[in-house]
């Protein structure tokens, strides 16, 4: 009896006061249906705290959040499944913790198939992809593509020649990150070229690596290069070896190799962190010709200062196209250049619009 009365009281008070408190629940847009957005406004009454509870079918009422904000929003993203109806209850309490009002509402979330916020990203992705693919195909069909000189790469022949002449090895470092970084893969592509040259000239190649997966891949790459050069017998599987996964442990090891083996040429091509300068300075003191290349903006200054040749940023990725003159790669490079052209054009338009006080382009692009 008592319970019924209390229930009735709550029910009536809800009915009476529901106008004074607004409590709205919306589905969170552009998601997988795992969240609802709750918003409330209790400015009409003098509540000092609100508590929001939720009840899913076949389970108990649980507290979702509490807040001291009079007007607020909350994203409920805990155990929400799309398509299920949830009952929410907002209780407004006074400073003594006494319930002033209760509001109930129901809501369900839904999941979307397209994230509308990412439309600018999609457009850009399509534009760049299509232009790259287009240029690749047009290059394949025999269109002649120009590529400007990339300074750092002239050194490759020079280095291999020097190493052969001096009877000293060539050291190659494919960066210190794993295969889940594009720079490592770009470095390995260049390793293939270098290994082929080394095989042709009969120069010794040393490739210490600091990741096991890079070890496997680098071995394959070098082996293939020796085969391609027609000298599979000259391939020494232990010329590609693992030191340690540790950044500085690896550097200590490589430094040791540099001072003891005195390579004629060092190549540092891939992703580098702080070790860049330790390697380059030790390499310099041992008198090697040094070529470096990375897309890590923070390490480029050190390579530029301490090495003889440096591939800056994108040049690392363009290098294999430059060396191979392979139409596919040249085409892709042309497509990337198209991307740069788009960048400059859109940027110029955007700046002009910003100066004239129109912000729509920037807002559209910033939405993602």
């Amino acid at each position: 009896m008592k319970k019924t009365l209390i229930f009735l009281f709550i029910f009536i008070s809800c009915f009476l006061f529901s106008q004074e408190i607004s409590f709205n629940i919306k589905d969170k847009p552009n998601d997988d249906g795992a969240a609802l957005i709750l918003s409330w406004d209790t400015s009409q009454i003098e509540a000092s705290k609100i508590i929001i509870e939720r009840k899913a079918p076949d389970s108990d009422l649980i507290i979702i959040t509490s807040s001291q904000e009079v007007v607020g929003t909350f994203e409920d993203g805990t155990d929400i499944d799309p398509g299920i109806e949830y009952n929410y209850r907002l209780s407004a309490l006074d400073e003594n913790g006494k319930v002033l009002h209760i509001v109930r509402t129901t809501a369900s979330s839904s999941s979307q198939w397209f994230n509308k916020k990412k439309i600018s990203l999609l457009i850009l992705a399509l534009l760049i992809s299509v232009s790259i693919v287009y240029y690749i195909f047009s290059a394949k069909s025999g269109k002649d593509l120009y590529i400007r000189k990339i300074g750092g790469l002239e050194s490759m022949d020079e280095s291999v020649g020097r190493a052969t002449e001096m009877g000293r090895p060539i050291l190659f470092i494919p960066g210190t990150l794993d295969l889940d970084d594009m720079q490592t893969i770009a470095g390995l592509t260049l390793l293939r070229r270098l290994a082929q040259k080394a095989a042709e000239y009969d120069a010794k190649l040393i490739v210490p690596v600091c990741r096991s997966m890079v070890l496997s891949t680098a071995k394959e790459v070098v082996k293939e290069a020796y085969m391609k050069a027609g000298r599979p017998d000259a391939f020494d599987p232990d010329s590609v070896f693992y030191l340690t996964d540790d950044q500085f442990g690896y550097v200590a090891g490589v430094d040791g190799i540099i001072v003891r083996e005195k390579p004629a040429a060092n190549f540092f091509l891939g992703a580098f962190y702080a070790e860049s300068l330790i390697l380059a300075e030790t390499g310099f003191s041992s008198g090697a010709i040094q070529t470096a290349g990375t897309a890590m903006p923070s390490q480029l200054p050190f390579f530029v200062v301490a090495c003889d040749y440096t591939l800056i940023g994108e040049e690392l990725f363009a290098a294999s196209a430059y060396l191979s003159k392979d139409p596919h790669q040249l085409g892709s490079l042309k497509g990337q250049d198209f991307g740069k052209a788009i960048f400059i054009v859109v940027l110029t338009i955007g700046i002009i619009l910003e100066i004239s006080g129109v912000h729509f382009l920037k807002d559209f692009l910033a939405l993602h």
Partner: protein
Amino acid sequence: MKRKIPLLITFTVGIILIISEFIPHKPFGQLSGELEIWFLIISGFAILLGQLSLFKVNILKIQYKQRDWQFYVITLISFVVMVTLGFLWGTGKSAGMLGHGEIITSTLGHKPFDYLFHNVYQHLQATMFSLLAFFIASAAYRAFIGRTVESNLLLTSAVLVMLGNTTFGSLLTGWLPESLNFLHLPKVSEFIMTFPTTAGQRAIMIGAGLGIIGSSLRIILGIERSYLGGE
């Protein structure tokens, strides 16, 4: 089969990941996270390959009594010691095969693995890293010579920023009147860092970004396949 299927896998995985960025609906939204955990697991298995290579190369050096072969014995011993201690008593809160080793832990103050980590490994790491303080000085001395316009720019901005970063920079130009405040060395250094440096960094980021995008696309489309090795 040995080459086509891997290329097909790369293509499928790459495309699905790109598309999933735009589809919040399950299971697409969670894919990239799950695949990155896969990467960790695969590389976790692969680490064994590295360890075996380390072993093999060092044992060969010792076997053939190469120059300094004694030192490679040290490599192997330190490796074996570290791994054994790690697996016997674990590290931090993870227990090893013999549990937590309370007695030995209370004697050493740490688990044996952690003891070596804190007292040897960490110091080696920090000292190796600190060699940079010397190398940055020697590289600056050797390379910052004003031969060309480029090297003059390199040199000037480096020296200005270095001065601005120290107390001498503020002392040197602290006497400047308010109207010439923009020539105050810390201000100059901040200006160089905020504007031209940001511009340079941004240009590199954009170029490298496009380079990475192009390479990714080439790999997904199977044009770039050198990572697979042998024909």
